[in-house]
């Protein structure tokens, strides 16, 4: 019996969700202090934002009692509703597309014999994580402007394509981490039992990979839902999403309505990221 082990040789250390993180860093003196400061800086400013979304008054700094009026106001605001629906449509479509591409990419970079140019492929897939968003945004603005002029099409597809592109690495990372954690014996056994490659993928790899795919999809969804810069530059007529709508409001008078919308977005993000964490943590049997 010839069992071939395609253990990936190249270890890329850019995977924040991998369970193979080195633990040495915890022993560095001051680690706990730095960690606490980081969490405080990241999360303390969110507390008043959330608190004032429940303010009864019109102020975002003076507390006038508890009320849900701003959630109601946001819910009733047609512009907010339209922007929210648009955001969700874009995020769902883009995350489905990005996850499909990312799954294929992850299979292509882990379930193969190491080949020349593999490192370059990692780099290309993860490129949107490295390039400053404003650079991508301006580049897309110029390219899409040419396409828009040539085709006279101004639909949502531009935003969906752009969001798909920058969501791919976010979907790719958890999927690849999952694939790397799955050993090849089950797939090899299936192959030994004369299962076709498609059958192996369909009956063995995919079910095992599913938590990774779901995690990737959710991460991609959140990233798309929260995007401001690229959306601001790519959007056409009447295509404000929730974040770009909020950006427009901030220039002038801010009411707790913005806090309410932010709190809802924050809630969605926290829930999804928690699910991603739980799914990624689940051990491969």
């Amino acid at each position, binding site marked *: 019996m010839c069992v071939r082990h395609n253990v990936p040789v190249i270890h890329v250390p850019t995977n924040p969700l991998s369970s193979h993180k080195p633990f040495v860093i915890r022993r560095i003196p001051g680690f706990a202090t730095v960690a606490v400061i980081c969490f405080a800086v990241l999360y303390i400013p969110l507390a008043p934002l959330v608190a004032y979304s429940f303010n009864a008054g019109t102020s*975002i700094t003076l507390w006038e009692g508890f009320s849900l009026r701003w959630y109601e106001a946001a819910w009733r605001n047609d512009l907010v509703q339209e922007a929210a629906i648009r955001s969700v449509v874009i995020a769902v479509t883009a995350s489905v597309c990005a996850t499909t591409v990312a799954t294929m990419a992850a299979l292509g970079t882990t379930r193969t014999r190491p080949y020349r140019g593999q490192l370059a492929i990692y780099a290309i897939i993860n490129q949107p994580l490295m390039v400053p968003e404003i650079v991508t945004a301006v580049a897309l603005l*110029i390219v899409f*402007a040419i396409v828009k*002029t040539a085709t006279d099409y101004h639909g949502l597809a531009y935003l969906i394509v752009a969001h798909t592109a920058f969501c791919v690495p976010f979907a790719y990372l958890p999927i690849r981490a999952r694939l790397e954690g799955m050993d090849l014996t089950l797939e090899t056994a299936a192959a030994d039992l004369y299962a076709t490659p498609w059958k192996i993928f369909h009956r063995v790899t995919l079910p095992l990979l599913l938590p990774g795919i779901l995690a990737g999809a959710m991460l991609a969804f959140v990233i798309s839902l929260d995007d401001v810069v690229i959306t601001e530059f790519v959007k056409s*007529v009447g295509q*404000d999403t929730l974040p770009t709508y909020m950006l*427009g*409001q901030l220039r*002038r008078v801010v009411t707790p309505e913005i806090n309410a919308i932010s709190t809802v977005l924050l809630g969605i993000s926290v829930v999804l990221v928690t699910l991603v964490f739980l799914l990624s943590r689940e051990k491969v049997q």
Partner: protein
Amino acid sequence: MMKKMLTILAGIGLLATTGAAIAEGELNLFNWGNYTNPDLLKKFEEAHGVKVTVTDYDSNDTALAKIKAGGHGFDMVVPSANYIPIFISEGLLLETRPDQMENFNHVLDEFANPDWDPGRHYTVPWQWGSVGMIVDTSVYSGDINTAAIYLDPPEELVGKINVAPEMNDVLSSAIMYLGGEPCTTDKELLKKVRDKLLEAKPKWLSMDYGMIEKFAGRDVAASLYWNGAAFRAREKNTDVRYGYPQEGFALWMDSVGVLKDAKNVENAKLFQNFLMQPENAALISAFARYANGIKGSEVFMPDDMKGAEEIEIPSDLAGAGIFLPTCSPEATELYTAIWTELQK
């Protein structure tokens, strides 16, 4: 039947090049976020059967970048005065000749021939405002029509002053306080400006936005800031007053232009003409709370805005207001140097 007649009439009007046209269809307005009254759009839609879509931007630069790239699909844009010369010289605006439109006679004289759009060949007024002194008079009851409030502050205000973190607004105010003209490159004067600002800064509390809340909470007692915010601050703290520095204060205005690559040019022209009608201009102000530059619109303003000291400049001080020009690169460089030093 009526519609048909109007269409024919409109056709004739078009031939005469200046008249209003009834054009069914769409209009895509690219405007600052939270700046367009939905009632204004509804009125226009009902009157002309045109569906108006508003898309937001958050800065002149974003708007300019998107429009310059092309293919955006917008028909109209609302840039600030100092950006309009850029839009015109880049060939982005269509010469719609608002000055020949039916309602142009409603434009206030001081806005009919501005430096940034001589003769109003491109744009119509949207809103305008000023940069002045917001003061909590329960803390300081002296004269507030002076930039000394923040440059040579009275004892009571020391440590309670805010300054808007906007380079052009602050520098022009300080230059005028010391007797210069905005955009000056006189180095002697600019040295004095720098020294004055650096000397005053220790007496300030902050250089920040969000003054409506700060005055409501009485965290700040004076600020160099915008009149619309002063109006809103007074709604929350009745001791708040707005002063116009007699040494000179900056004015700003946003105007509506039609884009050269607009698809709905006739509707856009209709909208420009529509905006110069006093009752429509009043709708703009009722929403965003700034003055609009159209004669006779005061009558249609919400009651709380009628005669508000933040909206109507007292006649004895009106002459001190100056629209900031687009400064030369040399001046901008000098100002940036002073500004950087001030921020340290």
